[in-house]
């Protein structure tokens, strides 16, 4: 998603001072991009809304610690990604789903079915979807993803390749396997 989310320094300073109107302005500015990242990483819309809420609760708590290094959107997005990944880990622990495998019990895509990319993307595991979205769309490096996930760089790289191989199969693309 293109990010044109620059906010005036004055607005940030007012938010840091606890100005409620400024905090709401920040919420309105970043509400959709935060939700979008969370929704692309998580399967459920409700979970994504919860991550949106948790992210801004953290922003409200920690905005005084933001000192202008890097883009504010980068700072907020990292909080959102961390919270979404925490939720994924929690759900995986709950259902004992291995981190790097496709979940059991989900309707399987017929290999070669001609479906659109968005639907195919939805059928990836939460972990694969997160890696693809953070790397290919949000521009995170494998090193950053590995740090966020508490995994190795090679884990991130292999997840990305496996996810693209699955997407390719689901989309019925390509000349060879």
């Amino acid at each position, binding site marked *: 998603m293109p990010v044109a989310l620059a906010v005036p320094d004055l607005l940030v300073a007012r938010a840091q001072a606890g100005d409620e109107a400024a905090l709401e302005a920040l919420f309105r500015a970043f509400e959709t991009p935060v939700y979008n990242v969370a929704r692309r990483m998580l399967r459920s819309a409700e979970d994504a809304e919860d991550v949106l809420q948790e992210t801004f609760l953290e922003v409200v708590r920690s905005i005084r610690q933001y000192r202008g290094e890097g883009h504010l959107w980068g*700072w907020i997005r990292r909080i959102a990604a961390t919270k979404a990944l925490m939720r994924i880990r929690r759900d995986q622990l709950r259902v004992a789903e291995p981190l790097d495998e496709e979940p059991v019990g989900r309707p399987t895509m017929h290999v070669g079915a001609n479906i659109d990319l968005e639907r195919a993307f939805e059928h990836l595991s939460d972990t694969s979807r997160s890696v693809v979205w953070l790397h290919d769309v949000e521009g995170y490096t494998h090193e950053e993803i590995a740090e966020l996930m508490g995994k190795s760089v090679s884990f991130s790289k292999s997840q990305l390749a496996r996810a693209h191989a699955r997407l390719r199969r689901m989309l019925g693309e390509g000349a060879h396997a």
Partner: protein
Amino acid sequence: MMHCTMDDLVALRAGEASVWARQHVETCAACRAELDALYQRVAQLKALPALRPARDRWPVVREAARGQRMRRHRTWGAWSIAAAAALAGVLLLRPSTNVRAELVQAKQQSATLEDQLQRYDVEGRVLSGRAAALVAELEDRIAVIDGDLTRRGATATGGGTGTQDAELVKLWQQRVGLMQELVNVRATRARYVGL
């Protein structure tokens, strides 16, 4: 004929492919097509429309922000270290019970920890999600104790009956314990934002 794997294609896109893969894709039309398809897939992912939340979550966030402001107002700042120290001096010069001395000590410890916490707040750090949840829980528990202390009208001195003072000591000591945990979380689990 051996073709590029998806690992090779992803590495080619990242400019990290092996010499073999780079040379192969120059001569193999099928692998070039696969690489093009990969580029197109990524471009299509980037072009997906932004999804928007169905419900407005701002009211919940706003209430939390208001609660946080109220907690901050209730907390003791650095000024209270001096106040508590002065009080300690007064009480220690008078014949006093152990309970009162313990009360003064707990207040001093609490004020010192508040001061430490304020210093962590300005270090430009951000917490992981897990640590943030822990901080929120600790802050909520401290707020409950603060509310209890305020109801008892006991934020300044003891001076009640022996039983009342003993209860105050217990509350202040609980507060010190929670504050210590909060400081530990801030000190050991906060991370610099590397963005």
